[in-house]
């Protein structure tokens, strides 16, 4: 290959690489706005997750369970019987 064609090839390659670099940089830089959108979306999802955790805790709280039990008419038993020894299954005749 002649010296001239090598120089031409180098010049074309340099131009091609330069253009590619500019295109890539431009493309990547413009994706910054996409990144910003995704960051906002991540923040929103995290915020929703916290809100859902809060709802779960609120629904499982004793305060709510008590209130719900009262609504359903459940009450504390007035008296209780404790069996301290096992009852016979059947008595002999």
């Amino acid at each position: 290959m002649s010296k001239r064609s090598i120089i031409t090839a180098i010049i074309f390659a340099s131009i091609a690489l330069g253009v590619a670099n500019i295109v890539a940089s431009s493309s990547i830089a413009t994706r910054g706005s996409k990144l910003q959108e995704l960051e906002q979306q991540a923040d929103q999802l995290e915020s929703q997750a916290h809100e859902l955790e809060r709802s779960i805790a609120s629904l499982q709280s004793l305060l709510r369970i008590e209130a719900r039990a009262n609504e359903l008419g459940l009450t504390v038993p007035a008296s209780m019987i404790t069996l301290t020894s096992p009852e016979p299954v059947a008595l002999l005749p």
Partner: protein
Amino acid sequence: MIANRLRASLYFLCFAGVAVLFRLFYWQVIAGESLAALAESQHNALLEIPASRGKILSRDNFDLVSNQPAFLAYAYRPHLTTDVYSIAKLLAPIVHPDPPETTTSAQLIETMIKDAEATLAARLSGERWIWAPLGRKLLLQKKQAIEQLQLKGIDFEPEQIRYYPEASMAANLVGFVGDNSNGNPQGYFGLEGYYDLELKGRPGIIRQQKDATGKPILVGTFGGYEPKNGRNLKLHLDRSIQRVSEIELAKAIERYGAKSGEIIIMDPRTGGIIALATEPKYNPVKYQDYDRSLYKNSTIADAYEPGSTFKVIVMSSALDADVIKPDTICDACDGPIEIGKFTISTWNNKYYPDTTMTEVIQHSDNTGMVFVGNKLGKEKLYEYLQKFGIGSPTNIDLQEETVTQMKPQKKWGDIDVATASFGQGIAITAMQMITAVTAIANDGILMQPRVVEKIIGETTVALPPKPVRRVISKKAADEMTEMMVNAVQSGEAQWTKIPGYRIAGKTGTAQIAVAGHYDAEKTIASFVGFAPADDPKFVMLVKLREPTSSQWAADTAAPLWMRLARQLFLYYGIPPQE
């Protein structure tokens, strides 16, 4: 002529060159640092990523304290399109501070809105601002309300605030999160104060290059570090027992007309705090609305004279020292005892000659305890009290523990031995009292009280039970337990006993010292005990300050203790033994 012109041009060029050099010197050397910082701020964004504060979990892994999203609303001046007075008027009804819980006055709320409007208008009408905060810690609903106004230049930064699913449950144990002098969140009192470093974590920083519109450049340089969230605390606290304790305490205070009250329930084998209830309490969300005196946990911060509950400490010491036995006869119990200018009498002026030590505890006999104190002697009594932890902090993992020092032993006189033997003239906290009794329930070994069982983070740190020391022998602990069982079965509070259960307990009615003398009417009624006596599942102390329906513990604190014990037997599935 030409030469003159050339000379003039030369001078001008020289002067211009010197001027440029001076200007360059100014930019590069004098203003170099600030200009570099300005350029840095235009090219780079420094974002702080807040760390989540650790949660506080009850024994059943329920979020006793967690976080909820909140927002900082701010105005960015270059993007504002609405006039600032209109913004202030629109936002004030949304961002004004919440009124105190106890207030529903529409007039007060109206005033608060007007104040908020004036503050916002003053802040936004200034000339020298680019960014201005409009409201902090706004909940999601308020954020949405602001968004609906569609005001340009108003934006939000995420924050977190504490959320309490069980409302004010265990508020005095948990503490609260407020702002420190730099405006950063900080834990105060209780667990939030004691474990602030573990809970708060460390915020992260992202450093990235941005373009002219402020958007991040992907090929730019990134840096910084990830946030490190705070660690979670798992407690020994059982929220069901805590809830029941708080309900029963509130009812008892109303029923007996007491000023305040406390309940502590402890696991005798681990020293774990199963429940700790105090009344009155505060709402940690709106702690600012309450008197500051309510913030501290009275079970560890307020000392009181324990009265007759203290007799079990002195009696078990004497049993361990082998200076008495349960059936030792008191030969000084047939009447009041004179010590110097003081006369020691019994609480009801009844005297039991030839009474046994078991009966001394049963009758809560002061003269019998003076006999025991004298048998033990000043040196040994002092030594045993120190071993039981009197005069020292319990080292519980809560922030505000205080301790009242005992008078130095060399300053103790005969009257000090006598009064200490029945729990007067000595000041302790409720936590010290229950910790000492826990040693009797735990075969003589004193345990360090603990609220937190585990610290959960990237690595989990278990906090195992910590025995402090052996205080008395197992034999002495067993003998004392039997004497306490007899006190419940046959003592003043026998009407409250629960049939079928062996409960070890002791009442205490202590007079309150006011201006150097004991007030005849004002008492602190308490009951301390454990059950089942042979294999204790819990140790419980209840304390009522200045009950008015009756000043005696047998009529107030004892029935409260038994009511709660009934529920604990049911909860733990402990059947009657007899």
